[in-house]
């Protein structure tokens, strides 16, 4: 299943946020969306996931969702968005409650999602008892429990410390390795973008428009090789040179806002 941004423009009041953004995420593809602060990355993701209606253009789906997918477009949130009054197990089961699965089927799906994210032993814990990294793992377990076609990830690692980020990045790489799931990955972090994405959409400062779409010239398996590091660093520098001046302008704009 492909997810297509078709000439999307959006305003908040009189503030232009996005202008004429078009690109596609093909089946199993990981597309990172980067750009200066306030360029509309998260807004674009909300529009792609159907949580916000754009003023112009639209988000489109092409092709069928994989058999058994309970929620083809599934978000992983920056702030985890866990129900604090529910246990880890209940949080993962939450999106399954209305899907028509029987209790035993739900139980099996939850157990599998918890096992894949290393949370089996934390099933009865409450979110407040978990570290930030473990909370995001619960968010990921909840997302994969509904077998999505495309994960919509809004800076999923930005609230975490660097060691936890590294561990979760490895988890993402593992989850997306077999190509059964695609992803739109919004991030400020260019290193994350070059490690995870097949293509990187670079947005200009507000109002965000596509400046460039960069293809990462290595498979994700190849990116783990020692020799690939230089190439990835060069790509990261290239991306930074694309957005550096605008990032400085955007930061000044935010400070004066």
């Amino acid at each position: 299943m492909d997810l297509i941004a078709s000439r999307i423009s959006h305003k908040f009041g009189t503030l232009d946020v996005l202008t004429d953004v078009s690109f596609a995420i093909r089946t199993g593809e990981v597309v990172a969306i980067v750009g200066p602060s306030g360029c509309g990355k998260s807004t674009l993701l909300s529009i792609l996931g159907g949580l916000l209606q754009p003023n112009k253009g639209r988000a489109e789906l092409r092709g069928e969702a994989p058999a058994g997918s309970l929620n083809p477009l599934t978000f992983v949130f920056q702030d985890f968005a866990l129900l604090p009054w529910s246990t880890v197990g209940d949080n993962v089961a939450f999106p399954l409650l209305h899907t028509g699965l029987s209790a035993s089927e739900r139980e099996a799906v939850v157990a599998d999602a918890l096992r894949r994210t290393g949370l089996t032993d934390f099933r009865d814990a409450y979110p407040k008892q978990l570290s930030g990294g473990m909370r995001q793992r619960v968010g990921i377990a909840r997302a994969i429990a509904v077998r999505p076609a495309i994960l919509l990830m809004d800076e999923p690692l930005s609230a975490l410390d660097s060691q936890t980020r590294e561990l979760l990045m490895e988890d993402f790489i593992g989850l997306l390795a077999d190509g059964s799931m695609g992803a739109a990955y919004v991030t400020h972090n260019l290193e994350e973008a070059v490690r995870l994405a097949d293509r990187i959409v670079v947005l200009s400062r507000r109002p965000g428009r596509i400046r460039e779409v960069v293809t990462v010239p290595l498979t994700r398996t190849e990116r783990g090789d020692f020799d690939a590091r230089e190439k990835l660093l060069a790509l990261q520098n290239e991306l930074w040179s694309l957005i550096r001046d605008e990032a400085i302008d955007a930061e000044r704009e935010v400070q004066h806002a």
Partner: protein
Amino acid sequence: MLDQPQSAPEASANLAKTVAAAASGLPQEKSADGTRPVAFRGGGFAPQPGRHAGWIGVVIVIALWQLAGSAGWINPLFLPSPLAIGRAIYQLALSGTLWQHLAWSAMRIGTGWILGTVAGVIVGLAIGLSSLARGVGMTFISALFPIPKIALLPLLILWLGIGEEPKIATIALGVFFSTAISVYSGVDSVPRNLIRMAQSFNVPFTTIIRRVIWPGALPSILAGFRITASIALLLVVSAEMIGAQYGIGAFVLQAGNLMQTDQLLAGVVILSAFGLLIGWLLSLLERRLLHWR
């Protein structure tokens, strides 16, 4: 003998040292190896409730009160001693009068509170969830909430007769507005990201209300219950003082009219105990329902 006058640079250097030492707050003494401990500056501003201090305070005040009564320093007509009040409560309980008055008050509070709470929760949820209900409801609530509800009792008596209905309606009205406000404030305080999360999984509207909005609003709703319990207690006493034969409010008023101050204060103590009991029950409910906090 006068000190030798310092030269200007020396005086300036010494002054600078003194000011720096004072500003740093560091102690001046040094150990043999030239080190000195960093002065602790982080104390205070963290009051802790003493475990027994409250009870000890209450006991001391009651003991002094009793002493003043026993020694004849206070006229028992104006302020009976704690023992006299205790005796009055015991006799009221033994004769059955206490239970009769308490039962009437409890019935009025219970019925009025439940009616006001149910209506307040429904209206509060509607205001929290619907733009139309918010537009209309907020206008009415803003206009009617400040009215002292007891002032409406004569009008309610005119409408509903002189039976129990106007008293219960007064309590229900007082409870309704505060409940509605705490419910819609609670709904407003539910993090929007949780609602968006549920929507992103296509969770149905009613499930979002049941599984996200209700539990998210519950801390505010339960805090509102504490306020409405106090309002109900206040209104039942006021309503019973205006027009009732039975009830703690009526009993207190009768005792006052007859100058039976020990009975009057017995009624006040019973009201206080009743309020404490409600507070304890609500704490129990909070511990059970909000254990996740």
